């Protein structure tokens, strides 16, 4: 098992290097604002721009720049480890900015995750236990809506209703938890709900489908033949088998969300890394892309390991 984990971690490394390479290449190939111009300030002279380029090694060949970046990333730069560089626009180091924003994104992601699990899975289970009933049809109708309605539509609609018209909730923006628990909570409530809606719908459908399939398995018939109570048959025999794929999905979804819930953060003006990625600051985008890739690959690894714990038939040699 340990050897398997080490092998997977090496692949994480390879993935990150590849992601960095591709992102670098895109920046070189695509026309975008020259970072040197950003750094140099208002209406810089060509000489100034040239000096800035030389200063930051932006005139060096691609391979050299990429190599230097990778080196700095893993060995640290002037601002500490990992070497996340600095922003050409603000001329300040990126690491604290990114870490702060990552914390906001994490709050959004984890809060939404708890909400969507608490809503989606019970709905899915109840639908599976009473297929084609009124409840099932309504629940799956809700699921269809939730999966289809885009965040940039639902978000403003709910803001309009709950903030503008009913004045029940505060508007957009982020309130750190140190500044007040209830303010923090009220500001996060709508973003959590809006982000959780699509996932809850999806998880409801998945748990319903999984449970229906599991309840048709032979070992459920055996459990009933043993004389177990129906509650035990469903909860201990049915659910246990049908929820393991949900755990996998949860890990992957969280991994992806930690790379930034871009639309939600933008709609609600939350200073997460998703919102920060929508701009043209070279190192910032590079860093965020790498962080997203990191979380996704690590989430994949964790999910695979957890699955081996949940399903004894899966063992890694």
């Amino acid at each position, binding site marked *: 098992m340990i050897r398997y984990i080490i092998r997977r971690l090496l692949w994480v490394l390879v993935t990150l290097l590849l992601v960095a390479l591709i992102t670098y290449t895109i920046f070189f190939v695509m026309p975008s604002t020259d970072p040197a111009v950003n750094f140099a300030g208002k209406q810089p002279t060509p000489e100034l721009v040239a000096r800035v380029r030389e200063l930051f090694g932006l005139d060096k060949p691609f391979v050299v720049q990429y190599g230097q970046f990778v080196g700095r990333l893993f060995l640290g730069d002037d601002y500490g480890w990992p070497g996340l560089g600095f922003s050409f626009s603000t001329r300040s180091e990126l690491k604290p900015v990114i870490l702060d924003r990552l914390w906001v994104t994490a709050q959004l992601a984890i809060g939404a995750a708890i909400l969507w699990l608490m809503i989606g899975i019970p709905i899915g289970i109840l639908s599976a236990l009473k297929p084609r009933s009124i409840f099932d049809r309504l629940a799956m109708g809700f699921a269809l809506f939730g999966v289809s309605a885009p965040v940039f539509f639902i978000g403003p609609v709910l803001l309009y209703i709950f903030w503008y018209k009913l004045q029940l909730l505060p508007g957009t923006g982020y309130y750190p938890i140190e500044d007040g628990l209830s303010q923090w909570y009220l500001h996060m409530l709508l973003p959590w709900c809006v982000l959780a809606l699509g996932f809850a719908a999806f998880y409801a459908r998945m748990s319903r489908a999984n449970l229906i399939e599991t309840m048709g*398995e*032979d*070992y459920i*018939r*055996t*459990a*009933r*033949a*043993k*004389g*177990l*109570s129906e509650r*035990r048959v469903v909860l201990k*025999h049915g659910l*246990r*088998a049908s929820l*393991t794929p949900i755990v996998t999905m949860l890990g992957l979804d969280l991994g992806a969300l930690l790379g930034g819930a871009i639309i939600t953060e933008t709609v609600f003006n939350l200073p997460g890394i998703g919102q920060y990625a929508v701009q043209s600051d070279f190192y910032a985008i590079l860093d965020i892309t790498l962080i997203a890739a990191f979380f996704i690959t690590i989430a994949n690894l964790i999910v695979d390991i957890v699955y081996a714990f*949940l*399903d*004894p*038939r899966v063992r890694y040699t």
Partner: protein
Amino acid sequence: MPEPLLEVKDLSVHFKTEDGLVKAVDGVSFSIMPGEALGVVGESGSGKSVTFLTVMGLTQTAKNAVVEGQILFQGEDLLKVPKEEMREFRGRRISMIFQDPMTSLHPLYKVGYQLSEAIRSHQKVSKSEAMEQSIEMLRRVGIPKPDERVRQYPHEFSGGMRQRAMIAMAISLNPDLLIADEPTTALDVTVQAQILDLIGRLKSEFNAAVVIITHDMGVVAEHCDNIQVMYAGRIAETGARDVIYYQSHHPYTWGLLDSIPRLSETDSHERLNPIKGLPPSLIFVPSGCSFHPRCPYAFDRCTAEVPLLLPSDGMHAAACHLPIADKERIFQERMLARS
């Protein structure tokens, strides 16, 4: 005369489907004595499994099932017993084992846990005591190192061992009736014999009645006292084992006996002798005798009138319109042709 353990009277199980009413079991009556070994034989779709799943109360979970008739177990009509009480019967007084032990055991729980669960759902014992009993049961079904095996998962067992474990689970509470639904179909031939021997041995040790459901007449030949042949949801013939094998009175039974593959020393090119045709649709059951489309001896009465299961002598009964004299003659001819 001792009281029958199980008396099924006019049982019918129909399923309402989009395509029509599926008559899986259509007017079946029989009885089983305590300690009896009954073999129930028939092709897929004959209604043999559904009959006994209904005895266990497991078909009634389907919302489109229509069950009529009576199932008297030790005098009580199981079809009138409330669901909660039926749970007391299942696993404790009547047990069932199924065809494929790999899919019939829960893949994510250890075998010991699954056995103990069966015990603890009917008896107030502690976890460790139930585990002790489970280990003992595994030993009794012939699994070596049972104290290690209880901590393993089903996928770590071989096919034969899994079926033994299922048998252990079914027998752990000393049921009066054990129903084995195709217990050997998913196993190798060599293992089949072991499992059947095991069932036979446990039957005498535990004093239980056993029903072996199978499509293979070879399987029931050695271990059953009586045999019941089912076709298209009805009983075609029933009687003592020797009578069915050596003096049967139903063309379907003859067909089944003829289709048993034989190792022939004289003619290595001997072909298999299946019954021509296919089992009928259970929605559009043929009129009269449901076997008549495939019966080489059918005559006009067979298409018009459903033959009743009438006893010809003693316990032996066959649902066929042919006169007995004709049946015995045909049977003799077929025996000669076979040898």
